């Protein structure tokens, strides 16, 4: 029960260090009581055979109001006679009656010079042992043997201690940023102050950071724990919401102060742990050195930490610091302490550099790296993140009072990004579907930017999605993101709760619900990104928040909307009355294309397609090939004819080109618009620029029927046959669409696959209304919308088609 009390801020105004005196006075009082009882009861019963020690926190003279009083009796032999046992009981009784909560152990000198793996706390407590009374001879032995024991067993002791630290950190998910932290055990709490103290005793540590800051943090935590004990009347160290309110008039601001101190302590503990880990010369250390043997002209990695190669220069070089984050994100190592210090000093210069010109290309590159979260953590810890995203300061250490959330807003945000990295590595079959989405999307950098900013507006008092969009919008503009990229990121932020709400409060089997959701979400790519964002956002609320139940619900929501996107393709067409603002010629071009066309293409692309359409000859086609990153984009506009798709696919295959994505749409006037994304694994087009023109010519002649594609392909040397890793599946669905039969094909991606499939479909005199082609790693994922004389396929034709497609996939 928390009683109303004087706030800690009042106490802070007074001399914080008064707490040390209070703890010491309490320890002195307890010591006097213990010595008195010892002299009364034990000294006469064990003349010169027992010595009394204060150990643990009591040994350090840090006795909190309701902490245990840890005592050790050092004996020359185990007391076992009835009289001796009675004396020990009487000693304890007197102390208990004197209201001291003692925790007593009786040990032999030999016990104190061996490692107790199962009771390491005992070994550790001896580091703070303080002689109180009793046999001087025993104490002399103890004093003589302890330094020798520490010299011999220090490294072992440190190793065991680090194991305990890792276990303790794991309990708190390796973060200080808990909304309701335990001021003793949480990372950054008092136990970490002890850890630094113990490890320094085992081996001196050179750099623990700013000593004054560390001392201020220590006093803050001591005061805090003292107050928690006083308020709750017991050994309670949990700084829960009630306690936060009782301790401060402005708990949110005050918790930021708590986290600032905890961060100082946590950093000192990290440095002490790293120093201790580094001192081990064992196999593990050699392995880690070997694993992290990596160097560039600017950085090298030692013991899994990145260091600058050059000595400290007088002029801070902010550009080099930016490369450092890129290096961390690419290779997955943390910064060394020295690198951190250099970055910290360069933060103003980094901010100046970032403000001097748009840094979007850098951000985009960084946010696509495999270990982005390590780079972001390093930027967060050194303050460099705020140079790129000043909004970050708003949510740093921000506590939100929420029944579910367990972390501060900044920590939650970083955990979302870590969650996606973890998903990429996770082999859990239940998560495979989400992992596949992650592999399929090329929008990962934008998704991660959206995650970084999705809660930036929290704490502003207004709807945080709206506030976050506003903040992100101006930030992305300042960084120089393109309009399209901005639109994607802002969409994700604005809609970041859409799927959560869909999966818990809407009837997913109601077509009107999924239809409306599909309209709001717009494209399948948006849906994939939003699903991954929701996956990460829920997972980062607290460990285990994304239960199998919620995962299933999220997947059902994704599937329901994704099916809607596939279903609508042939039934949901652009109608002329929607095109009032377009020129008649443009309206004529757009009339009857799938509505989705307008959503997935920018206005510039639509204009380009229109110009191609205007130039379509009576026989032949308008063809445009452009380069976009590592892939080529092909757009073909032509009149519909049999074997059209097979002709284009065959022409591409005859050049050894690999189709990774394709959309095939037709308008109401028989005009077909095919867009392909393909790669050039043999680098033919790169090495011979004239090949691009030849490719155009071959496509055009293939479409016009002037060359036989099959013959072209026969001339090609067969590629190396790879054993198929994907069992081909062909699923014919007559129910999904009102007007066409949907055929879903999954197969090992192989040269000429689309050509064979398209040929098979055309050989049955079927019409391909719409095609969506995608490739995920080596798996081809294709959806064909097929009709025969304007109707869905009958069962017999569907069966024949299935068999032929399976055969086409198996060649």
């Amino acid at each position: 029960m928390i009683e109303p009390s004087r706030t800690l801020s009042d106490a802070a105004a007074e001399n914080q260090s008064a707490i040390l005196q209070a703890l010491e006075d309490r320890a002195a009082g307890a010591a006097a009581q213990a010595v008195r009882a010892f002299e009364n009861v034990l000294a006469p019963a064990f003349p010169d055979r027992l010595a009394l020690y204060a150990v643990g926190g009591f040994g350090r003279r840090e006795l909190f109001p309701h902490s245990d009083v840890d005592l050790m009796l050092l004996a020359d032999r185990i007391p076992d006679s009835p009289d001796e046992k009675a004396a020990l009981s009487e000693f304890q009784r007197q102390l208990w009656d004197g209201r001291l909560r003692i925790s007593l152990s009786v040990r032999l000198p030999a016990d104190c010079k061996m490692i107790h793996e199962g009771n390491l706390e005992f070994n550790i407590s001896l580091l703070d042992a303080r002689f109180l009374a009793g046999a001087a001879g025993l104490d002399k032995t103890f004093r003589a043997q302890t330094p020798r024991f520490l010299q011999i067993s220090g490294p072992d002791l440190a190793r065991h201690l680090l194991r305990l630290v890792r276990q303790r950190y794991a309990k708190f998910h390796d973060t200080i940023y808990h909304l309701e932290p335990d001021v003793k055990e949480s990372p950054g709490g008092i136990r970490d102050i002890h850890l630094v103290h113990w490890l320094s005793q085992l081996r001196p540590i050179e750099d623990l950071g700013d000593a004054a800051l560390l001392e201020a943090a220590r006093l803050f935590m001591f005061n805090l724990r003292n107050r928690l004990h006083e308020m709750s009347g017991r050994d309670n160290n949990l700084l829960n919401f009630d306690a936060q309110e009782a301790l401060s008039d402005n708990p949110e601001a005050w918790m930021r102060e708590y986290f600032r101190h905890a961060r100082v302590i946590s950093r000192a503990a990290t440095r002490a742990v790293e120093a201790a880990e580094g001192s081990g010369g064992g196999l593990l250390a050699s392995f880690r050195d070997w694993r992290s043997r990596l160097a560039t002209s600017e950085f090298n990695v030692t013991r899994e930490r990145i260091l600058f190669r050059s000595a400290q220069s007088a002029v801070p070089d902010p550009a080099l610091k930016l490369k450092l984050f890129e290096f961390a994100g690419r290779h997955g190592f943390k910064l060394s302490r020295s690198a951190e210090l250099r970055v910290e000093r360069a933060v103003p210069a980094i901010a100046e550099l970032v403000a001097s010109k748009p840094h979007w290309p850098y951000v985009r590159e960084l946010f696509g790296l495999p270990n982005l979260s390590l780079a972001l953590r390093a930027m967060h810890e050194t303050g460099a993140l705020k140079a790129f995203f000043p909004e970050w300061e708003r949510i740093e250490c921000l506590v939100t009072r929420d029944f579910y959330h367990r972390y501060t807003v900044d920590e939650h945000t970083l955990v979302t990004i870590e969650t996606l990295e973890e998903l990429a590595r996770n082999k859990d079959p239940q998560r495979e579907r989400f992992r596949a989405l992650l592999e399929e999307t090329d929008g990962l950098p934008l998704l991660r930017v959206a995650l970084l900013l999705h809660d930036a507006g929290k704490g502003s008092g207004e709807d945080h999605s709206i506030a976050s969009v506003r903040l992100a919008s101006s930030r992305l503009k300042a960084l120089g993101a393109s309009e399209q990229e901005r639109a994607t990121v802002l969409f994700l932020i604005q809609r970041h709760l859409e799927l959560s709400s869909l999966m818990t409060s809407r009837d997913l089997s109601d077509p009107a619900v999924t239809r409306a959701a599909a309209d709001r979400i717009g494209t399948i790519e948006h849906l994939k990104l939003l699903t991954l964002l929701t996956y990460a956002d829920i997972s980062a609320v607290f460990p285990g928040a994304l239960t199998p139940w919620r995962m299933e619900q999220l997947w059902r929501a994704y599937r329901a909307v994704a099916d809607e996107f596939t279903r609508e393709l042939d039934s949901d067409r652009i109608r002329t009355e929607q095109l009032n603002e377009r020129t008649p010629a443009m309206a004529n071009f757009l009339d009857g294309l799938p509505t989705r066309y307008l959503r997935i293409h920018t206005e510039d692309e639509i204009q380009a397609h229109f110009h191609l359409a205007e130039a379509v000859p009576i026989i032949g086609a308008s063809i445009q090939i452009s380069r976009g990153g590592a892939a080529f984009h092909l757009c073909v506009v032509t009149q519909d004819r049999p074997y059209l798709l097979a002709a284009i696919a065959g022409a591409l295959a005859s050049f050894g080109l690999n189709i990774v994505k394709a959309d095939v749409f037709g308008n109401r006037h028989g005009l077909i618009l095919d867009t392909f994304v393909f790669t050039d694994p043999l680098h033919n087009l790169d090495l011979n620029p004239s090949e691009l023109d030849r490719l155009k010519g071959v496509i055009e002649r293939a479409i016009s029927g002037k060359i036989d594609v099959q013959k072209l392909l026969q001339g090609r040397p067969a590629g190396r046959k790879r054993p198929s890793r994907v069992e081909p599946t062909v699923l014919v669905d007559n129910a999904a669409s009102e007007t066409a039969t949907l055929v879903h094909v999954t197969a090992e991606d192989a040269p000429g696959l689309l050509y064979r499939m398209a040929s098979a479909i055309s050989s049955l005199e079927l019409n391909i209304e719409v095609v969506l082609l995608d490739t995920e790693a080596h798996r081809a994922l294709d959806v064909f919308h097929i009709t025969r004389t304007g109707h869905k396929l009958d069962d017999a034709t569907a069966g024949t088609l299935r068999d032929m497609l399976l055969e086409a996939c198996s060649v």
Partner: protein
Amino acid sequence: MKKVEAIIQPFKMEEVKEALKSLGVDGMTISEVRGHGRQKGHKEVYRGQEYTVDLLPKVKIEMVISDARLDEVTRALAGAARTGKIGDGKIFVYDVAEAIRIRNDDRGETAL
């Protein structure tokens, strides 16, 4: 006293909670469960991978009420949870022998 246990569609939970609240029923236990009824499960193919969807996500609501309230509570519950489609769920009613409030040892309906 009766224990009412309802398995409902997840998206109906808020509506059901509201309906019960308007009757003055505040105490309930809610769990996320998975299961299937007579409609059994089915197989779903996604991207060539087959997934068995035999256990669908549902929400289980449990509450103990006085005998006198049974009729209105089950009626409100069913009314709020119904869509008329397969998978709307079930309500089970059990007799309760005793209720004990742990804090003060209240017994029977006063403990509810």
